[in-house]
């Protein structure tokens, strides 16, 4: 698990707290969350960073961006109920964790 963040955006703590809550709800107690600060436009380009916070589960964005430009900015998330939010929110995180668990199970079955 990796949380990419930029200091110009104040939503990192909230995103981390929501991620921890989602992990707890999913019964995942041993997840390692790597915090990666994006400090420059060059780093943003290198990580295809479309805004802070960006949360990756097994390398996959929990809310894959469509046509968001890469750069140092605060990320806009659209919640299922239609509101705008600076963090992905519990439903999106739960769904991303469910997808990750399915991938793991599938890999174990096909191994």
């Amino acid at each position, binding site marked *: 698990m990796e949380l990419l963040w930029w200091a*110009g*955006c*104040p939503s990192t703590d909230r995103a981390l707290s929501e991620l921890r809550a989602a992990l707890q709800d999913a019964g995942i107690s041993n997840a390692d969350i790597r915090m990666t600060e994006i400090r420059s436009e060059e780093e943003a380009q290198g990580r295809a960073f479309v805004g802070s916070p960006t949360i990756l589960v097994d390398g996959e964005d929990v809310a894959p961006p469509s046509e968001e430009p890469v750069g140092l900015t*605060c990320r*806009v998330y659209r919640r299922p109920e239609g509101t705008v939010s*600076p963090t992905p929110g519990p439903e999106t995180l739960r769904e991303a964790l469910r997808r990750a668990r399915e991938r793991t199970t599938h890999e174990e079955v096909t191994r």
Partner: protein
Amino acid sequence: MTIAIGQQAAHFQLPDTEGESHSPDGNPATVVVFTCNHCPYALAWHDRIMEAARDYYGRGVRFLVINSNDADRYPRDSLEAMKRRVTQEQWPVPYLHDSSQEVASAYGAKTTPDIFVLDAERRLRYRGAPDSDYGDPSQNAAWLRGALDAVLEGRAPEPAETKPVGCSIKWKA
């Protein structure tokens, strides 16, 4: 520079998306809102601020919404992008372009959004966030509305100051 509550705010003249100039003069209350096109906090609060502008228009309150971000580094804050928003979203208020960032600097604006409520003498009566939770539309810009009610009734807003919450203003290098 930051303006203290009770202090007179700087006069300014800025063009809107159609090129018409606007200044914070001649109204019993003026709301100066620093915002932008891509910040999730500004977008989350946007409808509540526009609704307040509509509701208080009849009481002589003027809203001046300003974008001061560096559009070279953040093209989504360009004048063209501002024009598109005003048209597509049918804004009831002018969207002003502070390309030199002088107004944001004079007001000490820190975030988008950052709200300054001025009285008829242009004295600062409220500064901060629209309400206590960007994620809860039912808050309905309560701090902003409370400040406007107070100013229109000649009272001191309570609270007079809250912490502005949002993305940092994108200053030019």
